[in-house]
Every structure is written in C-alpha cells, then in structure tokens.
C-alpha cells in the first residue's frame, strides 16, 4: 500500500533517572522542580515513533508527531528526537505532567490531528504509546481514536505487518508473555504500542538539520492548549512503596539483562 501516513501522538516526561518527588503545586499535585528536570520523549511513544518511521519508509507516506507539552521542554526534547527519524511536528503548548486529565489531553490531541493540512484520515494510522511513563493509565490514545471516529483499535502492540492491499496484521500483548494475532482490513486504525522490536535509532545530525527547518516554526506557532478540568480533584498522591535501586548501564544486550534478573531472583 502506498502513501499510508502515520500520526504519532507523543508526550514528553521527566527523565526517569531524576528524583521524582510528588508535591502539591497550587491546586494540583505535581513533581518537585518539574520544569527544571530534563525531559525525554515518553518511552512508549518513542517505540511508536521508531516503528512508525520504519513503516512510512515502506509506504512512502508522511510521518507526523503530535505533541502537547511545555514549549520550552518540547524544544529541548526535539534536540534529540529530531535527529532520530524524519517527521513533521504539530505541537500545542501546555503544562505537561502526569496529573493533567487524560480526557482533556485527548480532546486537544484530536483537535491537532484534525488541523493537519491535507491529512486524509482514511489513509492514516494513529500511533502512540499504549500508556505513558507519566500516567500509565492507558486511556488517552483510545479517546483520541474515539473522538476522531477511528474505532479499530489495538493496544499493547509489538508488531504490525502490512499487506499489499492495505490490510495488516497486528500482534498485541496479552497475559503470559503471549501475543494476540489480529487482522485488520486497513486504515484508519489506532495502534497503542508496547515496546515493538526496533532499537532506538542513532542520532543523525543530517536528519536533525532537515527536521529542524520545520520543527522550529512549528514550536514557535504552537498555541496554548487548555487542559483544565475543574471537575477533577486529587485526594492523595504518593510514590509506589517499593525500594528503588537504580543502576546505570548503557547498551547491554537483552540476554545480559535477562541473566542479571534471573540471578537476582535466584538470590532472593
């Protein structure tokens, strides 16, 4: 199938290596010093983005990234992400964080998707993370799909295989480390990604320079999005009561990681 487009809904979150300390910030809970923390692309959305980039390479369609977050932080994250794969950014400026109402975010995301110039939804897949590192509720993407009238939805996706006639197969995660195999007759559809199988692409400054030509104006034009929901209240916020023991290793293989976990379990 040619020219199939992908729109990836991708938020940003504080770098998980940072101290994430919930505090009351005005009316709402927030993280201590959240705006000063370095941010990263939400890891789940990241998987969606890299899978999407591979897919559009195959189809020759366009790749869009739709993001709502604090402009200054979005720009900072783009300095890395823009070097990974070619895409066009559509952004709105709003306080991010795990305490915004997911429905409000979904409404605004859907609005941004609708505004993409010349986008034909019937020839488009809507990607995102099946949940996010800040909220973990797994609700946003489903609502975006519903608002846009895209009701073929798949969550916890690890793989998509496209057929020549535009139909595709999807592997979705289910319990017990197994996958549910589904077939879909074609776009439009919503795919909420788990990890997929692709590694993070290395930085490529040439891609970055090309992307930035459209990303910077997109950021400058980003309009404020209203995420307030007066009906939403928080009664309590706390970190999960588990011991956090962080160890930093980079680039080690999945086998080595698995072995370490096995050794740890055996030692308990």
């Amino acid at each position, binding site marked *: 199938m040619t020219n199939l487009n992908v729109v990836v809904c991708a938020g940003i979150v504080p*770098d998980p*290596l*940072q*101290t994430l*300390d919930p505090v009351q910030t005005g009316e709402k809970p927030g993280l*201590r*010093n959240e*705006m*000063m*923390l*370095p941010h990263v692309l939400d890891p789940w959305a990241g998987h969606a983005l890299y899978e999407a980039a591979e897919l559009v390479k195959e189809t020759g369609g366009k790749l869009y990234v739709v993001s709502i977050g*604090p*402009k*200054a*932080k979005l*720009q*900072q994250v783009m*300095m*890395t992400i*823009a*070097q990974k794969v070619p895409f066009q950014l559509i952004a709105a400026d709003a306080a991010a964080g795990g305490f915004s109402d997911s429905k409000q975010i979904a409404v605004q995301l859907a609005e941004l998707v609708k505004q993409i110039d010349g986008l034909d939804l019937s020839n488009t897949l809507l990607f995102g993370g099946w949940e996010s590192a800040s909220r973990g509720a797994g609700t946003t993407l489903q609502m975006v799909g519903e608002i846009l009238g895209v009701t073929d939805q798949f969550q916890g996706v690890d793989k998509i295989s496209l057929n020549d006639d535009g139909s595709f197969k999807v592997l979705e995660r289910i319990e017990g480390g197994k996958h549910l195999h589904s077939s879909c007759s074609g776009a439009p559809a919503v795919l909420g990604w788990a990890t997929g199988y692709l590694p993070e692409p*290395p*930085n*490529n*400054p*040439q891609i*970055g*320079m090309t992307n*930035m030509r459209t990303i*910077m104006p997109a950021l400058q034009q980003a309009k404020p999005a209203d995420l307030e929901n007066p009906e939403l209240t928080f009664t309590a916020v706390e970190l999960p009561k588990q011991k*956090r023991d*962080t*160890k*930093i*290793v*980079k*680039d080690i293989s999945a086998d080595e990681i698995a072995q370490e976990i096995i050794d740890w379990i055996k030692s308990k």
Partner: protein
Amino acid sequence: MYTLATLPGDDIRSIMWRFADRFELQMLVQSVRAVARGPVARAVAEGARNSHEWTTKKSQLLKAFDESGITAVFMDPEYGGFIEGPKNFALALTAYELSWVDAGAATGSLAGNLALEPIHERGTEEQKRTYMGGAVPPQQGEDRIQYRGAFGLTEPLPYVGVETGMLGGKVRVADWSADKEPVLQVEKRGRFITNMDFANFVCVAVESDDDRIKGSCMIILEETDPGTFDRGAPTLKLVHQLSSTRDPVFNMKVPASRIIGGYTVKDGVILPNFSHAEIIDPVFKHTRVTVGLMTAAKLVSAVEPVIRYQRGRFRGGSLEPESPRYKLGIQQKEDALHRTAAVWAAGEAASSLGFAAARLFDELDPMEKEKEKYFREQGINKGRAEFKALMKIQQDAVNHLENDDDAPIGDPMIQYVITDSLANVLCPATKLWNTGEGATVMREAVSLMGGYGITEDCPGFLGQKWMDSQLEATYEGPEAVQRRQLSITMTNKVFLTQFGNWIQRLENLSLTHSDMGIKSLVSGMKIWLETLDYLQTHRDENNTKLYSSSRQGVTFAMADALCWLLSSYYQMEDVLQLLQKGPENAAVAPNLEGYVAFFKDLCFIQASRAAHQVAQICSELYYGSASTLPESGDILTPLLQELNANIAGVHLAKDRAAEALTMVMIPEALDYPQ
C-alpha cells in the same frame, strides 16, 4: 535565603554559554552526550583505560564518533559537514561533553581535527577537498576509505617540542625530472603522536636539507606512499588512555603537491607557500581553547558525584532515616560544603572563560579572511609591510576604544585588530589557567570523595580526571609556552585599553549588582594594571628592565595573575547573561532567581580568590623586586586596602552557597556507568 532547585540543566547552560538560539549546537550537544555517557563511559567502566595498546574496544569509539556526527563536526558543508560557518564553539562544546566523562575520548576525536587543521587553515583547494572531504564518514552506499589523520610536530628528545624554531625532520628532493612534479624524500621521527595507531595520513613538520627547497614546511604523508611508514612504539601514558599515542618513524617519497598550501618554483628552488611556523600558529590558536575546556568540564562534572557521596556517606548504618546525619551525611560539615562550592566556582569560571574564547574565535575567523583579502587588495604583502600597516590600525583601534567604547566600529580592520588582540590573550589564558589551576582544583574534588576518589570505580571517574588534567596542561604547548605567549600579547595596547574599559564598565555594573563580588574583581584588575605599568617602566638593581622576555620570573607571574582575572570576569558575564535572558525561557523563568543568586555567590567566591591571587603575585613583584621599597611612592598599598574592603561579605556568600548545596535536588543516580 534562595533555593537552588536542581543542578543547572541544558536550558540554563545554553543561555549562559550563548547557544540558546543555535539549535544545530543544541542537537550536537545531545548527540555527543549520548556517545560520552554511553559507549565512552562504558569503555572506561570496563577498564579500557588499563592498557597502552589500541584495543578493539577503543577502536569502536571511532565508529561511535562517526555515526553520531562527531567526526564531521569539523567539516564545512561543502566537504560533507553539517554545521555552517566557523566551528570553534561547536568543537568546544564537543570536547566539553566528551571530557565530562573522559578526555582521552575527546583527544581521540579532536586529534583528527588537529591533523586537518593545517589543511583547513593553509591547504590548497585540492588538499581540502581530498582530506577534509575524505575524513567525513562514508554515507550509505559510498565505497571509499575514510581518511583519518595525525599531526606530527613533536620529535624525540633532544629535538623539538611544540614551540620550535628548528626541526629534526628533513625534506630533500628525491627526483625532479624536467617538466614533472618534483618528488620529495621526507624523513621524520615523531614523539607522542596522537591517532598513530590508525591514522592513514600524517601532516608532518620538516625542514629543508636541500638547496633546492627553501626553509621549512608541513607535508602530508599517506600510509600507502612508498617508503617506511612505521607506527612506532605506543606511548606508555598514565592518562588519556582512550586515545592512541605512538612514536612513529617515517621515511617516504611523496609528490611535492603534498606540501601544505602548495609551493612555487623560482630559479630552480622550491619555495613552499607557508613555513611550518606559519601553519602551526593558526592551528594552535584554534585547538588550544578546546583543550582548556576539557579540564573545565571535569570540574563541573565533579559536583554531582561529590554531593551524592557526601549525602549518602552514613546511610548504611543504623541511623534513623529522618535524622540529619542520615539525610545530609558529610554535608552537615561546613568545610566539605565550602570546598565543594569552591570547586564548582572554579569550574564555572573555567567554563565561562573557555566558551568565551571559543565564541570569540568564531567571530575572528571571518574577520581574518577579510583582513587577508583587504591587505592583498591594497597590495600590502605578508611580513614587514603587513606588520607596519597593522601597527597603524592598532593605533586607530586604541583611539576608538579610548574615545567611545560603545560606538559601532565602522571599519572592519579596526574591528579585526580589536578582536584579534583579545583572542591572542584569551587563547593562551584558557589553555594555561583552565588546565593548570584546573588540575589543582581537580585534586580537591578527588579528596572530597575520600578513599573512593582515588579508586578506579569512583563515580564520575574523578581520579582519572585529575591525572588527565595534567596532560591537558602539557600537550599542545606546556604552561611555559602559554605564559610566554601571554606575556607578549597581554601588553598589547589594544588589549590593555579594552581591559581598562572593562574596569569602567564593571564599576558601573557594581552599582546595580552589588552582590556578586564585582568590586573585588575590579580591585584585582587595578592592582594588576598598576603593577604591570610599574614593572614596564622600572629597572632592577642590575639596571635590567623588570618586564622583559629574559625575566620570566616577572612576566610569567603576571601572565598567571591575569588569567585569574579573566576567568572571573567571564564568569560574571555569563551570570549577567542568565539574569538578562533567563526570563525569556518559560522553563527557566520560574526558578531563575535561585539560580542567579547561587551563581552570583559563586562569582563572589571566585572573584575574591582571584583578586587575592593577583594581590599576592603583584605584591611580591612590586615590593620584592628591589631590596628597598619602590621610590616612586607606594601606589599598591591603597589598592590592596581597597581590595580588602571590597570582599566584605564573601564569607556570607560561601555560607549561602553551602546551604544551597545541602538542598539542591540531584538525580537518583549518575547518568553514566562507573
């Protein structure tokens, strides 16, 4: 009391170091950081530094540099690079990010650029296309061998180091048939040549040993040229082991077209267009600043591991988790905090000085080209004629600076002379102070980590960084060479007039910013200026001029003193920039006050230190250069008294900074392995 929310991140740094509006540089920083804190850090953590040999693990870093764009940073887009315009600042940021983890990795990547520098500065168009284009990593589908270079100047003892008039390496005519390009025989032994394990071309400095070749030059040797290309023995380095260093031996035949910058033939003699000195000068001008930033990065990188160590020091015992001893650990102790603040302050000053110098060279590079063009158009030749013309412009520049410092400079030649005079000071100052004082401060950082500091697995590799800084003080010209250069360039009237203008500007600023030690810096600057004037106009008891090239005890000490002032000055400039531009960044604005207040306190700490170093050096020279007190009336004592009055409150600044260090939020863990 203010709050320092977190350690300063990219938002703040890009404002202070002036690249908030240059996204290509922000992207570069992210790319280099990923390599530094990924493969480089892993290599160090896995012990790759523990061998002198060039190993597979080390060579994999070259691939990481290629893939992430680090290798191509140096190149202009026309040769396959991706950054337009001068690259000094871009390379400075690259070196900073790599050295944040390991400066040997930085050296490995930068030595390739060092090899290309002679070609970049003086090479013929063809040489540029061949070697700069060839050094860009092949793109997908491109089938060619990538050029990787080495820079061969230093020779085995007892021959030459980096500042040299004579060379042991020789060039002769091997074959020169009529109407054909001469073939040259090049003999060169190198010592401590970086990249020598894998370089497939080397730019060597040689002197003529043949009546048919005039003077000295630099020549490009390729691995495949006929003759001996012996990579030699590896250097048994105690430092920077992720870079490759060997003592190679070359004896090869190459076409004369490999003379860097080309040549002409006159009366049967080959006249190289550039002597080796004419090539090396601009090369080192561009590469030494970067080395200074390597040490600066180490100092600032030490802050986070030190704070984490201090806080966690006693958490293993049976302490109550809510007790101050549990929460703060060694941070309960004033001395540990004050010293941490001092390390940080020195790191800020070194970074600010180095980045200011790098940015200045970005401004200077196009001006230099303009100057060349202008002089050639005017029929003014290199050498004496150019020197004379420049002297005249220098006077105009001084007049301009004396009359109206702020007025726009209409004449590009005057602008060039002003910028050049400053660059000629900032380059050796960065190299000298950042590395020399940096090594001393790095030792302090190591000791703050106790026994851990001196082990291989100290978080942040602080022990290795301490040792590494000593190399940075040595290669590309040891400290003596930098002091010598400074002792000349800092007495240029054009520079001194700018320096005088800074004093005025700072005095004005101190009225509105009374809380960052500006007045103590101004005192130091006045002490230095008065002392210099005294030394330049007085003689010792043997009737020798006090300030002269043979009296390094005087000139070198004054060079050291100046560096303290410059680094403190640029540190303040960067904080004032943050104060001015911070509100424009939505992420920074809400917490700006705390950051600015903290950085101002660091400025004060550093300014007071700097001014007192200057006071000590100058007092010794002023009062100590004769067996009796100066006859001219004691001009220094009032200034020294003024300085003491101007540091009122510096200890309070230390206390505030110390308290901020106890509360600043740091990440859960260091973002690179140990």
